[in-house]
C-alpha cells in the first residue's frame, strides 16, 4: 500500500510546508517543524528559568536580604525548578526525539502527527498559565517544585492554576511518549531490529515508557491536593485523618523515575556522539541498552531515598538504601563503556565531543555525590542542604543540559544544512564548563558545612562560597547568550554541511542530505549495520 501511495505522489521530497508564516507553525504536523518548535521553546525557557536562577543567586550573593522578600524568593525557587524541568529540559529532549527518531529509524514522520502538534502546543499555554500565577493575589506557589502539603495548600489564588499547569504539562508529556513508542514500534524500517536501534532511540523508548507509567501518578497526586483544597477531602490533611507523608510517597514515585526521564535521552545523545568522534563503534551496544533498562526498572523501587528523614521504619530505610546503591552498577557500566569507546579510538575534539567529554567527567561527579547520599546515615546530614543542590545540578546542568547542548551542536548542521562557527562553539564550551563548575562546586562545601537549601539568607560563614557560586552563575547565564548567537549565525547561513557532516558517522540520519528534506524516507530505507572490519 505504501508503494502505491508513493507511486501516486512521486517525489514527495520536493513538497514544502502546506502553510506559510505563523500558520505553518500552528498547524504543522511535520516532525521536523515540531522538533524545531520544541527546541526553540526550550531555548526560550532556558532564559526564563535562568533569569529566575539569577534572581536567586543575586539574593544569595551576600548575607542579608538585598533584593527580594523571602516569599518571592520561595516563588522563584519553585518556578525555576518547574520551568527548567518541565519547560526546558524535557521539551529539549522531546525536540531531539521529534527531529531525530524518525530519521534514525528510517520513518517518514512521527506515527501520530496531529497528536504531535497538540503535544507541543499545550506547552506554551501551560507555561504561560504557570507564569501568570506570579501576578495573582498571594503570588505563585512558594512550596518548592515538590509541592509538599500542607505548605502548598497555603498558596493563594494561584493554587488551582498551578495545579492545572502541571496537569497540562503532564498531558503533553504523556502524548509525546505515546507518539514516540508507536513511532518506534510501527514505523521503524523493517530491516532494523530492536537491538540494532541507535542508543538515542533506545534511551527515548525507555523514557517514553517511564513517562506513561509515572506522569499519571503525579497527575493523581496533584489532583488529590486540589480535592483537599476545594472539596474538603483529607488525603493529606492530618486533621481529617489524612497523611502528609503519603503525598511525598506519591510525588517521589513519580519524581525518581522523572530524573531518569531526564537523563536517559541524555545518555542516548552521548552514546551517539562519543563513537562518532572516536571513529569507533560504541562499546557494548547491548550492555548499554540493558544498563538503561535496569536503571529504568530500579528507578521505580528507590523513591523513598528522597525521604530518609521523614521517620520511616528501619526496614524501610534499609530497603531504600540498598536498592538505591544498586543503581550505581548499571550507571557505572555506562560510564565505563563510554570510556572504553574512546579507548584506542581516533579522537577529535569538535564542540559536540567537548561537551560530551565534559558530560562524562561532570556527570560522574554528580554520580559520586549521588552514591554518597544513597547511604542513609550520612544522608541525615546531607538531606535538604546545598550538598543535594550541588548534586542534582551536577547531573542536570553539566549532565542533562550539556548533553542537550552537545546534541544541538552535533545535529545543527544536519538540520540547517550549515556548519556552525566552530571557534565560537569552543569558546561557548570553555566558558560554560568553567562557570558551571564555579557555580556548583562550592555548593558542595556550604552544604556540608551546614547551609540548608531553599533559604533566602544565610549565616555569614557561608558568604565566600556563595559569592563564588553567584559569580559563576552570572557567567554561566551570560555564556548561554553565545549559544543563541551561534545558532542564529548557523541558521542564517554559513559554510554548507555535507550529508555526513562529520567524519563518516554511523546511522541512517547521515544518509539523507543536509538540510534534511521536508519529507524524508517516503520509502523505508534498507538498514545495514556497518561492518567495522573487526
Amino acid at each position, binding site marked *: 500500500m505504501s508503494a502505491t501511495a508513493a507511486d501516486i505522489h512521486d517525489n514527495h521530497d520536493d513538497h514544502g510546508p502546506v502553510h506559510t508564516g505563523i500558520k505553518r507553525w500552528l498547524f504543522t504536523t511535520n516532525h521536523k517543524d515540531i522538533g524545531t518548535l520544541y527546541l526553540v521553546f526550550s531555548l526560550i525557557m532556558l532564559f526564563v528559568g535562568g533569569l529566575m536562577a539569577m534572581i536567586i543567586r543575586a539574593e544569595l550573593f551576600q548575607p542579608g536580604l538585598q533584593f527580594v522578600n523571602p516569599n518571592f524568593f520561595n516563588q522563584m525557587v519553585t518556578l525555576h525548578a518547574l520551568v527548567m524541568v518541565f519547560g526546558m529540559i524535557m521539551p529539549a529532549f522531546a525536540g531531539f526525539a521529534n527531529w531525530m527518531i524518525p530519521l534514525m529509524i528510517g520513518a517518514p514522520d512521527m506515527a501520530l502527527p496531529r497528536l504531535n502538534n497538540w503535544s507541543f502546543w499545550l506547552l506554551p499555554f501551560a507555561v504561560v498559565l504557570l507564569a501568570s500565577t506570579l501576578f495573582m493575589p498571594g503570588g505563585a506557589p512558594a512550596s518548592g517544585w515538590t509541592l509538599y502539603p500542607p505548605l502548598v495548600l497555603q498558596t493563594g489564588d494561584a493554587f488551582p492554576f498551578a495545579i492545572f499547569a502541571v496537569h497540562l504539562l503532564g498531558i503533553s508529556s504523556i502524548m509525546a511518549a505515546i507518539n514516540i513508542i508507536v513511532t518506534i514500534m510501527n514505523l521503524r524500517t523493517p530491516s532494523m531490529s530492536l537491538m540494532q536501534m541507535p542508543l538515542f532511540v533506545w534511551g527515548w523508548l525507555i523514557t517514553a515508557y517511564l513517562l506513561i507509567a509515572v506522569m499519571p501518578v503525579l497527575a493523581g497526586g496533584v489532583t488529590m491536593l486540589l480535592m483537599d483544597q476545594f472539596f474538603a477531602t483529607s488525603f493529606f490533611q492530618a486533621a481529617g485523618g489524612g497523611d502528609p507523608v503519603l503525598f511525598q510517597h506519591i510525588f517521589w514515585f513519580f519524581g525518581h523515575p522523572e530524573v531518569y526521564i531526564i537523563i536517559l535521552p541524555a545518555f542516548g545523545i552521548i552514546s551517539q556522539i562519543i563513537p562518532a568522534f572516536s571513529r569507533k563503534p560504541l562499546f557494548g551496544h547491548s550492555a548499554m541498552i540493558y544498563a538503561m533498562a535496569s536503571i529504568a526498572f530500579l528507578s521505580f523501587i528507590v523513591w523513598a531515598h528522597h525521604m530518609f528523614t521523614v521517620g520511616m521504619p528501619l526496614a524501610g530505610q534499609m530497603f531504600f538504601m540498598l536498592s538505591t546503591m544498586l543503581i550505581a552498577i548499571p550507571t557505572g557500566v555506562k560510564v565505563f563503556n563510554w570510556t572504553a569507546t574512546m579507548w584506542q579510538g581516533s579522537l577529535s575534539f569538535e564542540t559536540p565531543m567537548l561537551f560530551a567529554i565534559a558530560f562524562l567527567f561532570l556527570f560522574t561527579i554528580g554520580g559520586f555525590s549521588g552514591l554518597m547520599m544513597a547511604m542513609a546515615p550520612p544522608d541525615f546530614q546531607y538531606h535538604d542542604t546545598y550538598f543535594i543542590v550541588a548534586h542534582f545540578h551536577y547531573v542536570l546542568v553539566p549532565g542533562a543540559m550539556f548533553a542537550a547542548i552537545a546534541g544541538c551542536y552535533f545535529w545543527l548542521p544536519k538540520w540547517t544544512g550549515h556548519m556552525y562557527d566552530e571557534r565560537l562553539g569552543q569558546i561557548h564550551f570553555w566558558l560554560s564548563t568553567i562557570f558551571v563548575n564555579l557555580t556548583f562546586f562550592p555548593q558542595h562545601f556550604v552544604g556540608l558545612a551546614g547551609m540548608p537549601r531553599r533559604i533566602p539568607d544565610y*549565616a*555569614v560563614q557561608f558568604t565566600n562560597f556563595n559569592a563564588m557560586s553567584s559569580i559563576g552563575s552570572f557567567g554561566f547565564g551570560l555564556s548561554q547568550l553565545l549559544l543563541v548567537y551561534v545558532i542564529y549565525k548557523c541558521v542564517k547561513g554559513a559554510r554548507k554541511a555535507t550529508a555526513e557532516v562529520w567524519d563518516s558517522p554511523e546511522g541512517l540520519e547521515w544518509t539523507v542530505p543536509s538540510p534534511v528534506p521536508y519529507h524524508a524516507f517516503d520509502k523505508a530505507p534498507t538498514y545495514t549495520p556497518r561492518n567495522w572490519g573487526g
Partner: protein
Amino acid sequence: MKKCLMPIWGSLFAVSTANAEWEVNLPVGVTDISALIFDLHMFVFWICVAIGFVVFTAMTVAMIKFRKSKGAVPATWSHSLTAEIIWTVIPIMILISMAIPAARALVEIEDTRGTEMTIKITGYQWKWHYDYIGEDVQFFSSLAQTSNEARRLGSDIDPNSVENYLLEVDRQLVLPVDTKIRYLITANDVLHAWWVPAFAVKKDAIPGYINEGWFKVNETGTYRGQCAELCGKDHGFMPVVVKVLSKTDYAAWLAAQRTS
C-alpha cells in the same frame, strides 16, 4: 552598590583567620553517632576519589593518547565480555563494602532503647516549641531580636556585625551532657525539620505524626542548626540552638525554670 560589594571582595581575597568561612566538610560533631556518620562519609568519599582517579585517568589518557591529530588509527573492537564482567563485579564488591557499615550504623541510629529523658519538639511557622516531658517546663524558641532586625529587606544593618547572625534564638534549648535523650517531634502547621549538624540529627516534623529519635552529647557547649524543610516565608529564620550543660548545671537550670 559599593556597600554590597565591599564585604565580598574583602572576604574573597583576604586570608581568612577564621576557618569557619572556608569550611568545606561535615562537622565531626559531639555525639558518637555524628562521629560514626562522619567516618562513613569520609569512607565513601575516599572510595569515590579512588574510583574517580581510575576513571578520570583512563578518560584523560584516552584523550591524550588516541588523538586523530596525532595520527591515531581507530581500533574496531566493540565489546569484551571479560572487561564487562570486571566492571560489573568490582563495583558490586565495593557497594557491599559500603552497605555493611552503613547498615550497621543505621541499626545503631534507630536504637532508641535506654533513653534517660524525653523532650518534645514541635515545629511552628516559624519557631520551635520545646516541652520537657514530665518536668513541667516548656517554651517557644524564636529567632533572636538582633538577627530579626538585621535580616529585614533594606534594614541597613550589616549581618557581619550581628553575633551568630541567623543562628541565635531568644530562648535556647538547654540539655544535659552524657545523657541519652529521646526526642519526640511533630509539627503544628506545615512540615519542618529539626537539624543540629553537630549531633547529626535531622528529623522531619510532620503534622499528625510523632517521630522519634535520640542523641547523647559528649561535650558541653552551644550547638547551632536550622530548620531544614521548606516551611514558608520565614523558613530561613527559625534556627535551632542547643546549650548543653553539665548534669549539675542542668539540674540547677531546670529547678530555676520551674520556680520562675
